[in-house]
């Protein structure tokens, strides 16, 4: 699938995301993939690896340092430039949106690099989606716990059944155009303020 294999260097402080990208590149037939999490001593590593393509996440505050290093010929053996396909504004936007950027050695043809950048973009997006879903699941769980506590408070203080307590929370949320979890949280907070004994 890949003619002569390109050396790819992935710089990402996020180990999970880096390994997802590495796996993707290997699946696509790239044998020479190196992952670096910490940029300390990176000039020496780049001299050793002689990467054709460098993929870096945009959260990395060392991008300015790396770009400067790439421009100094004595720091790296081969000049490295940002991968900018002028004919394809959409792919640049997609990369920045996904939070990734790529640098390539001078003279490498665009069509050999583009699939690597596309792969990184799609893996970055997949990782973000996964992280978002995880966060949603976590906050869902949190909010379910709070709703249970709010129901308990209502059942105890107003003598309601569990179902009636839940209905009351839901109705209040609908009337106030707020989330049921928010209403439950307000109730738990208020109950805590009014009488800690109520909650236990």
């Amino acid at each position: 699938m890949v003619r002569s294999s390109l050396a790819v260097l992935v710089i990402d402080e996020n180990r999970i995301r880096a390994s997802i990208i590495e796996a993707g590149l290997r699946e696509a037939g790239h044998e020479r993939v190196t992952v670096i999490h910490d940029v300390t001593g990176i000039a020496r590593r780049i001299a050793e690896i002689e990467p054709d393509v460098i993929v870096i996440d945009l959260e990395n505050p060392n991008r300015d340092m790396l770009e400067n290093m790439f421009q100094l010929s004595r720091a790296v053996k081969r000049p490295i430039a940002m991968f900018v396909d002028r004919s394809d504004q959409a792919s640049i936007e997609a990369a920045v949106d996904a939070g990734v950027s790529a640098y390539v050695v001078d003279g490498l043809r665009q069509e050999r690099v583009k699939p690597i950048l596309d792969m990184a973009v799609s893996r970055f997006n997949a990782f973000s989606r996964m992280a978002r879903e995880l966060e949603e699941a976590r906050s869902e769980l949190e909010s379910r716990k709070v709703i249970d506590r709010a129901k308990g408070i209502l059942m105890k203080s107003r003598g309601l059944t569990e179902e009636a307590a839940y209905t009351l929370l839901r109705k209040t949320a609908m009337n106030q155009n707020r989330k049921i979890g928010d209403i439950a949280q307000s109730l738990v907070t208020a109950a805590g303020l009014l009488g800690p004994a109520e909650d236990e």
Partner: protein
Amino acid sequence: MSMGAEHQITAGFMPLFDSAVLVAAGELGFAAREGIDLTLHRETSWANIRDRIAIGHFHLAHMLGPMPLACNLGLTPLASETIVPFSLGLGGNCVTISNAVWAGMTAHGAAPDLDPARAGAALGALIRERAAAGHDPLRFAVVHPHSGHNYELRYWLAACGIDPTLEIEIVIVPPPFMADALATGRIDGYCVGEPWNSAAVAAGTGHIVTVKAQIWRNSPEKVIGVRKAWAEQSPEALAALLRALHHSARWCQDPANHGELANVMAQPGFLGLPPAVQMPILTGHLRLGGGAELDIDDFFLPFDKAANFPWKSHALWFYTQMVRWGHVAHTPENLAIARDCYRPDLYRSALKPLGVALPGANSKVEGALRVATAVGATGAGLVLGPDGFFDGQIFDPDEIDAYIAAQKSARAEA
């Protein structure tokens, strides 16, 4: 955030104190009062800011003064035409060195007085002593190649007879990592904005040896860089924003507001550092290390002394230093690009309705004012300067060729 705002503006900033005027414009309602819904995005590198301006994510951003020039001169990938209609302040940087270098400098006559000439002479003597002993060159860090930090550090060293390209090494380190890199010995010194100098002093790992405000009094630092295409499409939105920034800057300068400003900047979404560490930049009272303390005149000005006026002479001085250090070739085309980048005309037309003091000229002879001077301006009185370079040199923007040639021959003779 008002839904019915007349203008929607998205701006990027780096978590540095000199983004304060932009941050306060959003947080304290100055933008809203001008009918602007201002959305601020915190970024992690200047490269990200450049990229997001280029692809249109940001209309404008907090930028290093020379950065828009570098974009327009094609020195960066993903460059897009960027103009500067507003400056975010004057001064604010320091040069900090390790305890070991300070010990070496004091042996050669350095004193904790921040005097650039005295500190430079001591550093030069130390550098020659180290070279004679066969030690590696000292390594200094700046935040970006196209930054006021890089150019003022080089200017200071060169004026003290030190060649910054041959006798020391200059590397790039992000501001929040500077103090740590110094403490662990990866670098020997750095030039950066506050609070990253005071941070090393507080940790007992560094000494402040001189400050931007003494290398070049009242000199330019950060600016508002605006995507030119957007500025041309939305002149009213831009003018409204410049008025909001003007009111914000005036508020930031007032000592009565410093406590509140420090609290705003302390929020995790902005600078995210305790108010106490922001006090040196606000008061100009610095601890230098080893128990020494000094009050510095005009250490950082977000508003006074026409701090927000985008002087073309500031942009042109940056251009001469880009030429001096081989970042760009001096050609009539490049000079024209540098001349067109800063836009005092846009500043003036936006602020004219406010009846405030506006400089009448677009450029000034930098280094000509030895003392604070009231100058001819429209509206109320305006005080400028002093704007002197520590070595007494003058930069006349009408004599650029001579300035560039003089610096070139000084280097050849050294």
